[in-house]
């Protein structure tokens, strides 16, 4: 039985795969900006429940619960202050030891201060002639294309 033309044209040796570094194998100096949320701070559940308990005790007459209400509002206010400060710092990208986890803006700030080695820029390998490549050679297969043929 004769081999088919397709089989004849196939290479007899196993196909060789070569790695080509199309893009430089480095991470970017930037992470995507995200809305930074403050995870700390309490929800003031304890104070809130105490206020509810007081209201229930006095049949929802709040004149007896000013103390509980003040405590609840103080807790809320403290939480709001922390959140505001966090947001302020996060927006500015200020670096400090107040937070455990870096926010995206802080990370970006750090990476802009200490960027990685040149990661190249777009387009990375598109028709880039290296020093050893001659202009006379048709490296990019543009010989038969319209326009510039080098």
């Amino acid at each position, binding site marked *: 039985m004769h081999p088919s033309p397709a089989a004849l044209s196939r290479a007899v040796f196993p196909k060789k795969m070569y790695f080509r570094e199309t893009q430089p194998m480095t991470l970017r100096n930037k992470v995507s900006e995200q809305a930074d949320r403050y995870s700390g701070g309490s929800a003031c559940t304890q104070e*809130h*429940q105490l206020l*509810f308990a007081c*209201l229930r005790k006095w049949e*929802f*007459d*709040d*004149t007896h619960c000013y103390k509980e209400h003040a405590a609840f509002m103080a807790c809320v206010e403290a939480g709001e202050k922390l959140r505001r400060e966090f947001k302020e710092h996060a927006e500015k990208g200020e670096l400090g030891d107040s937070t455990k986890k870096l926010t995206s803006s802080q990370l970006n700030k750090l990476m802009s201060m200490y960027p990685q080695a040149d990661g190249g820029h777009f387009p990375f390998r598109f028709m880039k002639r290296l020093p050893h490549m001659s202009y006379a050679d048709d490296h990019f297969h543009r010989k038969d294309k319209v326009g510039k043929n080098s």
Partner: protein
Amino acid sequence: MRLRSLVTLGRMIAAPSSARALSVSQPLRTVYDPKAFEEPITDKKLLIQPLEESDPRNFLLIKAMQSDDTPVFYRDRVVDKFVNLCLQRGYKEIARTMVYEALETIKRHQYKAWRKAPTAAEKSAIELNPFVVFSQSIKNCQPMMKLIKLTRGGIVYQVPAPVAPSQAEFMAMKSLRDICREKAHKGRTSFETALAGEILSAYKNEGATIQAKQEFHKQCEANRAFAHYRTMAS
């Protein structure tokens, strides 16, 4: 042609079926040329002091004073806010007259009580300033928290949340106004009378507005299980 276009314009403004109502809450343009007019001085303390020579107000025209800013000795922030809340269709004079009439009624009531009081100690316990009475009753009507809506999984939860002082004040005023309007509905009584009565009872921590506040607190308490949703809702 001009008449016709004016009629069309009038129809456009008056048309109830227009998709978007014309907002008149904030003027889009002013009749005052900003280069020719300056703001009037409304602060009485500043009014006494002479202007500097280089002050542009020496050479320019002055805008007419807003009716809110007239320097009267009984100006009160809380009362002014309440007047603005009672405003209907922009008739501020009417709203102001109604509120001040209620305050006058309160003054008369308190003064009568003061005259009837036998001892000096009882007399001193009666508050005669209606503005103080009003602000105290508004304070008494303020709710301690608010309910915010949060939709999760197709269910709308009423989440009890802390309320800022200014919003609590607003809620108290709105509740007071609505109750008085309800009482004065279809001429059962006048708004002024209802308001005076309601303020006096709220001053003593009783009455329909205080009851409404307590009902609201009850509703908040019934929804206390969802209080931890607050961080998601806000």
